[in-house]
């Protein structure tokens, strides 16, 4: 009835309990290969859910573009924050 005990580092993020979080982060594969593998997994999940479907709409690409705009804003915030509504520029 009870599941077989799974090692902490192999659990998915939402299954990890709060107390085990630090162990989980510490045990993840942070080598360049590991990072690429994680990015590839994330990309495959997004692609297969939103784009690689029979009747995909504009939402799949639109979400990507909005995310890009958001990241660009974050990247340039230090520069843009000087452009506020002031009396004297």
């Amino acid at each position, binding site marked *: 009835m009870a599941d077989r005990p799974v090692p902490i580092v192999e659990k998915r993020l939402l299954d990890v309990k709060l107390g085990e979080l630090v162990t989980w982060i510490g045990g993840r594969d942070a080598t360049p290969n590991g990072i690429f593998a994680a990015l590839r997994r994330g990309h495959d999940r997004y692609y297969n859910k939103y784009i690689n479907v029979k009747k995909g709409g504009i939402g799949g690409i639109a979400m*990507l573009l909005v995310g890009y705009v958001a990241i660009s804003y974050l990247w340039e915030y230090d520069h843009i924050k000087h*452009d506020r509504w002031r009396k004297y520029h």
Partner: protein
Amino acid sequence: MVLSFFDQFMSPSYLGIPLMALALILPWTLYPKPTSQWISNRVLTLQGWFINRFTQQLMLPLGRKGHKWALLLTSLMVFLITLNMLGLLPYTFTPTTQLSLNMGFAVPLWLATVLIGMRNQPTIALGHLLPEGTPTPLIPVLIIIETISLFIRPIALGVRLTANLTAGHLLIQLIATAAFVLAPLMPTVALLTATLLLLLTLLEVAVAMIQAYVFVLLLSLYLQENV
């Protein structure tokens, strides 16, 4: 710190990573790889149709020997058109507004077409420097003019793309600032300015696509003369 209107073209960086890197990698992520499925998803179908049509159109005037350039020219076109269109989104950075990038595309490719011509058919390549039917007294002057014209091509290619995109972005920023500042003072004029801004944005979308196309088309023309 006073912001000038040219600050949007500065290459920003965050934690040491320039935004240019993200902007250059993004087009690669936006085009999925074709699979061996018989019917693929809509994005892949559209992408495949567009690339096939474009390559066929581009390769029409080029002979067999020019077909070696098909992959390079089509991927260049797709890259430039994606960079230009992405630059129209708010807060994004357009790498093609940097002269260094455009010259980096223009000079090596132009030089390649010239060297191919000189190597494979030097007589014909040099013959391009003198148009048919020129009156005899004009020949020395015309050769000098044609040589200058030949060497100006890469500069023209690079600067054309840079100037068009930079000017478009600047205009959008100027007119947007005007509309924004006028809104509390003269709402009607601000409305007119906002309409102008809308039309200008549509123009910029067109310019973004056209400039990429012109770049690649001219390159294929230079290739056609020399291949």
